[in-house]
């Protein structure tokens, strides 16, 4: 089974802090994704990466950056955390050229971030 591991289940940070969310997958997947999930808004794509050192903006990249130095690891960075970034953050990975074309996304269990 594919395993996508997010390093923290819960995080509490202060406004203005730099925050790192880490994600590791163990299936040698090319594609990795960061989503946030909010009640009433569903899952929204922040950034994705289809190869090491490659990244693409999703629907809501503002206030975030990402890093993919190794194939198995994809980090989400909040440069200066704000209260409107309080959310559930979900990492996902998939194989193949396209997320939906060849394999479905496999998700981690999420990191619930609270910014105070």
């Amino acid at each position, binding site marked *: 089974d594919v395993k996508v591991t997010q390093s923290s289940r819960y995080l509490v940070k202060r406004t203005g802090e730099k925050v790192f969310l880490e994600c590791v997958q163990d299936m040698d997947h090319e594609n990795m994704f960061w989503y946030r999930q909010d009640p009433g808004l569903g899952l929204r794509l922040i950034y994705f990466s289809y190869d090491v050192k490659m990244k693409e903006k999703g629907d809501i990249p503002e206030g975030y950056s990402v890093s993919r130095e190794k194939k198995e690891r994809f980090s989400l960075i909040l440069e200066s955390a704000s209260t409107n970034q309080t959310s559930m953050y979900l990492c996902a990975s998939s194989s193949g050229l396209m*997320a*939906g*074309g060849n394999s*479905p996304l496999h998700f981690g269990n*999420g990191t619930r971030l609270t910014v105070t």
Partner: protein
Amino acid sequence: GENVGLHLPTLSVQEGDNSIINCAYSNSASDYFIWYKQESGKGPQFIIDIRSNMDKRQGQRVTVLLNKTVKHLSLQIAATQPGDSAVYFCAENDSGAGSYQLTFGKGTKLSVIP
């Protein structure tokens, strides 16, 4: 997440009955569809997928139906069990657009009454 079920349409079903969860999608060019299940405190879990060249696909206790004419997708769960209680999301992808992305629906919360 823990509160992902807030503000969602809810379907309540008696244990043992069949459940039907519906999803309307927006992009007529979408050619790949997935259903996910999300239990409280966990990430979405893949259930079943279907490509647009099919109108029905069956898995274990689940069936997905696709009606491209009206852009409608449904998930049928046979003999619903308490463990089926979760939020269910449909997702669509337009692979012809070279897209890596899935577009997710808002979800439906399924509550199974014992």
